[in-house]
């Protein structure tokens, strides 16, 4: 007695075989979703209490990052400026702008402005700004062209693979320490060499390799070990 037609043999074989592809496709889709801005928020501008423009203040007015993010060189966190920092200037300029009403309100009442966090690592990962700054990783290597952002967004996914991509080969990303805050820094090239200690470099890898020595970076094994970031 035959319940199934003969053709089901082929059909079932095809299904079993095909299932591998279906599962693979699902994994691929999951991985893509995991990396997509929908999950990581990369490139997404989020609502802020005041439409603070880095483009305006950094590129337009030439204010250095450290004027506002005062602790970036010395501590794990960069710090978001208190309202008083805005008032250094805004007590005198744009004093009637409606846009700035929340700032004045916050200054008067002493209540902090509640900014929406843009870069936010999960709480089980440890990050430290000062070491990156002091070893020559530029702000814009991680945060993107901040001086062209009318509203802040994060450029990178901030996922582990992104951190590791650099920790495995830091020489591809290092620049001289005094250029860390320069948003318009360009990697060395034939036409625009970068000079360090009087020696002109024309390509990133040779510059990076020398900086790794100069700034005494630890070995790749050290900085890719799990306990560096999960402690």
């Amino acid at each position, binding site marked *: 007695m035959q319940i199934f037609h003969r053709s089901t043999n082929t059909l079932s074989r095809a299904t079993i075989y095909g299932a591998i592809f279906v599962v693979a496709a699902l994994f691929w889709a999951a991985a893509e979703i995991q990396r997509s801005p929908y999950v990581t928020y990369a490139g997404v501008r989020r609502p802020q209490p005041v439409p603070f423009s880095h483009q305006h203040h950094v590129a337009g007015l030439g204010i250095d990052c450290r004027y506002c993010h005062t602790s970036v060189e010395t501590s794990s966190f960069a710090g978001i400026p208190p309202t008083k920092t805005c*008032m250094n200037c805004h007590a005198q300029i744009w004093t009637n702008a409606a846009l700035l009403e929340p700032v004045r309100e916050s200054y008067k009442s002493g209540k902090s402005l509640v900014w929406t966090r843009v870069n936010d690592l*999960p709480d089980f990962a440890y990050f430290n700004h000062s070491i990156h700054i002091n070893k020559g990783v530029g702000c814009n290597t991680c945060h993107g062209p901040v001086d062209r952002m009318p509203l802040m967004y994060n450029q990178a996914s901030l996922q582990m693979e992104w951190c590791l991509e650099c920790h495995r080969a830091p020489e591809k990303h290092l620049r001289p320490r005094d250029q860390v805050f*320069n948003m318009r820094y360009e990697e060395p090239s034939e036409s625009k060499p970068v000079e360090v200690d009087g020696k002109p470099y024309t390509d990133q890898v040779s510059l990076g390799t020398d900086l790794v020595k100069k700034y005494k970076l630890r070995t790749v094994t050290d900085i890719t070990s799990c306990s560096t970031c999960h402690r």
Partner: protein
Amino acid sequence: MLFTAFVALAGCRQDMHDQPRFKPFARSDFYTDLRSARPPVEGTVARGQLREDSYLYTGKLGNDPGDYLPFPVTEELLARGQQRYDIYCAPCHSRVGDGNGVIVARGFPRKPPSYHIERLRQAPLGYFFDVITNGYGSMTDYATQIAPRDRWAIVAYIRALQLSQAATSADVPAGQKVPSDPPQFEELGSGATPPVVETKPARHSAQEEPK
């Protein structure tokens, strides 16, 4: 298939991402002001911040500003001073200290004076320290943004700027190195992004100031 997917997705929870731990500046619903970073109780002295050496922190001897630096002036200190000056003061006072910074040019009702007027040239070093620490008139204080040692470095650099505008070598105390040419501002010392708008700093406003 669907079942497996559900089981797998059930693992995607945020529990480990948001733990009961405060990152610096995170919001807290526990305190009425929503700050997780608690302001210290008034009068708190953090370890290493006990102000034994009051001149270092006030720039004053008794009630009068002193006219010396609490530590030796070195070339590194002046370089540090220039870098910090360019970050924190130059937006208003301009890189040459004539008071025509980019921000002021956008319409400050009350402009900062040039550092090169006679009154400020005669002012003791401690006076500048006090202005940075406590503010002056419509200028707010910079005590929270700049650490005391850096404030002194800035003070030393301002004096160097003043001397460079009207220097004779007799003005320079022995052992103190002050650049003899006006400092070069073309080179971006601080590494800050150059402003896109061109502003022409009036280099010689010292001569124009009424004395």
